[in-house]
């Protein structure tokens, strides 16, 4: 009996979060059935993830922007522009890959500082600043590509970021060896972290999940990690894009959940006046958030250029809208103060799965847009309804 009540309590408390995962699973199962398993095939899932990478990293940054009650419309063309800069540095200046990446990321962060300065110190609404930024970087992208048109990037190392996979090392019946090892390592690390956390809580005498529930949780999450690993290992294994996205998510999740900076970000979103009177330097934190957003836009540009193996004159078109949609579907609140990085990632995959699944089913593009729009509204309605319910 106890275990049922505990499970019900857990679901009730986290309905918003679990709702996202359930939605993703439902969407995946539905498409899987509609396409005779084609959707869940190793090859398709691997593709799906690689296609979503450059939006997923933007969605992570956008979450924080939305949490502090702002918006950033410029990220799409910043990604496009900086992707082109990366291509130019690699081709025209023959810069090494690592230095190129570092330079582009720093450029991104600097652009973000300028945006942050205009928003905080000059008190210009972020909508206006970034709308202007969108125009500026669209122009800048056309400028740097005007003489060459599309810039082909012949550098195989760089292109691997968007297309390549981690080395196999060994294989078991044709299954990707290193991927399996990493998947297993992730499960072990996860279990160790959970045990460590639980022991710490016990040491403080705090309430923890019951033994049964704890085991169920460990098993469930391990199975999910194992399953995804297994699917990916069946094709080419983890792609470098997956590795980049996972690192970004882990870092940002850690910052938002565990650090003082993260708490300050949510406090500003929850009540900026109270945050100010609590001694939080609202302008500084906001600048950091804008700077991190543009840096992730630079990363998105790198992923996109590498994936296409070229920088095009229209790169970045509507990236920002996909990222904003992903954040809202993932539970970010327009009123500010609420929204998780992991939620936005799931949101990005929900939207990408819809596109991918409908493409496989041959749904006309016109219907695809309408359905995506409807899902966005439905997700926000669900969000508002579950949030308003008093605990």
């Amino acid at each position: 009996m106890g275990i049922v009540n505990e499970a019900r309590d857990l679901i009730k408390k986290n309905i918003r979060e679990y709702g996202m995962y359930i939605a993703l699973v439902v969407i995946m199962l539905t498409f899987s059935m509609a396409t005779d398993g084609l959707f869940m095939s190793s090859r398709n899932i691997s593709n799906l993830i690689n296609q979503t990478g450059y939006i997923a990293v933007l969605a992570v940054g956008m979450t924080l922007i939305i949490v502090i009650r702002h918006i950033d419309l410029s990220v799409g063309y910043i990604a496009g522009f900086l992707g082109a800069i990366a291509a130019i540095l690699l081709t025209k200046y023959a810069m090494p890959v690592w230095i190129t990446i570092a330079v582009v990321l720093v450029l991104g962060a600097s652009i973000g500082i300028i945006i942050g300065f205009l928003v905080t110190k000059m008190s210009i609404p972020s909508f206006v600043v970034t709308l202007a930024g969108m125009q500026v970087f669209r122009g800048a992208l056309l400028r740097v590509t005007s003489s060459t048109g599309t810039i082909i990037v012949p550098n195989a190392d760089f292109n691997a970021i968007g297309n390549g996979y981690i080395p196999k090392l060994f294989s078991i019946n044709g299954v990707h060896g290193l991927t399996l090892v990493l998947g297993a390592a992730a499960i072990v690390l996860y279990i160790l972290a959970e045990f460590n956390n639980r022991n710490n809580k016990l040491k403080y005498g705090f309430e923890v999940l019951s033994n049964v529930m704890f085991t169920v949780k460990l098993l469930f999450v391990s199975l999910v990690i194992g399953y995804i690993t297994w699917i990916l290992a069946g094709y080419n294994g983890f792609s470098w894009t997956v590795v980049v996205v996972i690192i970004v998510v882990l870092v940002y999740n850690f910052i938002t959940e565990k650090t003082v900076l993260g708490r300050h970000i949510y406090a500003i979103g929850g009540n900026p006046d109270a945050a100010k009177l609590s001694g939080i330097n609202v302008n500084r934190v906001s600048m950091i958030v804008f700077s991190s957003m543009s840096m992730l836009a630079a990363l998105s540009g790198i992923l996109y250029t590498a994936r296409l193996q070229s920088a095009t004159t229209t790169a970045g078109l509507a990236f920002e809208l996909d990222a904003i949609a992903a954040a809202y579907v993932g539970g970010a609140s327009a009123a500010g103060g609420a929204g998780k990085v992991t939620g936005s990632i799931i949101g990005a995959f929900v939207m990408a799965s819809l596109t991918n699944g409908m493409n496989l089913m041959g749904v006309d593009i016109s219907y695809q847009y309408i359905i995506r729009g409807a899902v966005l509204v439905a997700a926000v309605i669900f969000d508002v309804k579950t949030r308003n319910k008093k605990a």
Partner: protein
Amino acid sequence: MAMKEYILKMNNITKVFPGVKALDNVNFQVENGEIHCLVGENGAGKSTLMKVLSGVYPFGEYSGDIILDGSVRKFAGISDSEKAGIAIIYQELALVPEMTVYENIYLGHEIKKGRLIDWNETILQAGEALKKVRLNNLNPATKVKDLGVGKRQLVEIAKALSKNVKLLILDEPTAALNEDDSENLLELLRELKEHGVTSIMISHKIKEVIEIADNVTVLRDGRTVASMSARDGGILEGNIIKHMVGREIENIYPKRNVQKYEEKTLEVNNWNACDSKTGREILKDMSFFVKKGEIVGIAGLMGAGRTELAHSIFGNPDEYKISGDLYVMGQKKHFRGPHEAIKAGVAYVTEDRKGNGLILISDIKTNITIANLKALAKQGIVNENEEVKTANYYKGSLDIKAPSIEQKLENLSGGNQQKVSLGKWLYVKPKVLILDEPTRGIDVGAKYEIYTLMNRLVEDGMSIIMISSELPEIMGMSDRIYVVSDGRITGELPAEGATQEKIMEMATN
């Protein structure tokens, strides 16, 4: 003696809010063509009474009769009372800053030619309306945002006059005005009186009441306690104040062991502040101090500048232009933000819990630790278990009633929210604690707990500066009292020997 002619009679008006009787059988009568002043402490029921009259609280939500021009009226809303010739002008002016003066004056009752607005006629009429309020030289095409507060008020009166108002209600019209503008406004009211307009003025400034009123009604705790008339010379300062205060001081203030320290923990000298946008003077030449182990009360009426004083000391988040000296623990300080004030040992519990005090969508734990996360963090990483322990400690020691520290604040009562707010600021371990209206909107039980806590804190050597509008609270809890009026400190009193009358006299100075 001729029969007095009443334009308005409000008979036996009672208005109940959940848990509070805001008006209790109030009788209020206004003669035709007079200037009638309505006075009383904050919370006495003046504004509520005027809201009943103007239909903000429609017929059915109160009991009693409103008799205007001899007939009973049942207003269903503001538009009804406006039609009947009543106009109310609030402290927060209801003009649209981005619109011109003439657009504002006729907003909502536009002059039309057919279905379209007749702008030429509007401008012409607006000019006439402005003349009636002594703004002959004002171009009606000026945008309201370019006018000072004084002129805005006159424009609002012009707007009321353009609707053929018979009864003009002004809610503390001179509170935000300088002396010249105030004098001008009073002069205008007299002029309007000669033209047959009856005015009701709510005011905290006793001197101006004496200067202008034909009749005065005093409200206290939702009741009419006195009426005075200039005709028989009954409007006297002492008389008004006596009736305004006169509240029983209940014995709900716990005693404490007073220890005498000489050390001044916070001191302010010749403190001036003005709004950096409008240039308005907010604080004028204020000097005061608080000693270790002492509770200093800052009394005064709403709008006197007490919260602004607290903000200006606490790192000046509103970015006033400040001059003067601030000493904390004997050291001269110039805080560049609340974070520096906190670091120096000053904490400020705001008056507006919901607005700028707490994060209501977050839980108890987050709110308690937010101002001092550094104490819980190593290299910027928060120790969450220590955080839970800390939050639980304050939940226990302050007796915050909630199922757990994970409870969202929006689900807590006002008293418990206030305790969270106190917990948050106690956790920064302050030496000087500034409490702004610490017991506003909370029940008697929680009040008592907060008073007990304050005693415990000063017995442990903390200094408390308590800002409060409630005289009994100020007198019951403070060791010394400063009275603030109109951005100045108008008096200092020791707790013993202070009377409500004395304080009120200084507060209305």
